[in-house]
């Protein structure tokens, strides 16, 4: 059980860390946050990293997160990709929510839309008239006019019946 002492100790609870939703793309390996202390324009990014930095690190274990304070006049976030690319987010004067939404929409993994197997199968069956069986338009090809009628209702001709074919072959062999 963590010691719930200090400023906003809820950030140190397991439930809070696991509730993080910013799961960055796996190509991103380093995230640097540059901001200035006691600067009004940096207040949004300060709040963002105050609340969300532990969550981001918990969910992205391999990510290196660095904070650079009072290095440049403008605050920004920089992402470094595995192929050597860099991306900057200019964060001057932006609020915590705007920064969160920006990162969530552009740099996070969007959840894959996983379709359940049977729903996909149902749609295929209904759409494709060449499919027969359960969940399809027709149960059997015998229902379609112009095809061989159902042998359950009218006997097939002798040349299409395996039983008769076998008897014929045996008779020929005997003779």
């Amino acid at each position, binding site marked *: 059980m*963590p*010691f719930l002492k200090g400023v906003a100790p809820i950030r*140190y*609870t*397991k439930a809070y*860390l696991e509730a993080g939703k910013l799961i960055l793309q796996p190509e991103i*390996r*380093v995230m*640097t946050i540059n901001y*200035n202390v006691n*600067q009004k324009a940096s207040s949004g990014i300060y709040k963002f990293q105050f609340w969300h*930095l*532990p969550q981001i*690190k*918990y969910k992205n274990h391999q990510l*290196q*997160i*660095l904070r*650079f304070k*009072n*290095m*440049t*006049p*403008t605050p*920004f976030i*920089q992402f*470094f*990709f*595995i192929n*050597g690319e*860099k991306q*900057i987010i*200019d964060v001057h004067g932006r609020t915590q929510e705007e920064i969160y939404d920006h990162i969530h929409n552009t740099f996070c993994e969007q959840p894959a839309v996983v379709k359940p197997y049977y729903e996909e199968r149902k749609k295929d069956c209904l759409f494709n008239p060449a499919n027969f069986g359960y969940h399809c338009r027709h149960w059997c090809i015998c229902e379609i006019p112009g095809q061989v009628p159902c042998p359950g209702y009218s006997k097939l001709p002798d040349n299409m019946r395996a039983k008769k074919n076998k008897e014929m072959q045996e008779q020929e062999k005997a003779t």
Partner: protein
Amino acid sequence: MNRTGMAAMVRIGQVIKKSTRGDLNLVKVRAQNMKLDRRLMIYFPAKRDRWCVEQQNQTKIGDIVIMKNLPHAVDKDVFTKVNEVLYSVGNIKDPITGRLCRGTEFIDEEQRAQEVGRRQVEQMTQKRTIIE
């Protein structure tokens, strides 16, 4: 750990030391990361020092540098290289504007302030001559 096939890696660190080994320029880079204390559930900084190969001898101690893995390890403890200098000491360039800056000020403003000081001195000398 098998170092024959190096995985792709990108890390940012600060240069602490410089040395040479044979004809290689080596540079010790300290990369900081956050490590979770499982009992307190707080992230604390954890450092990891690596010797990097640096082909052009351009880095200074204190530079912030991007490291990448070499295709094959050169030595037992040398398996990374310095790819790029992000921020060089005393010469930090703001990546958004591209201007040189020092802390929370752009250096161009300081240069302008120096010029203004010079102009004030010239004006004072001119006034004296007019009065006389």
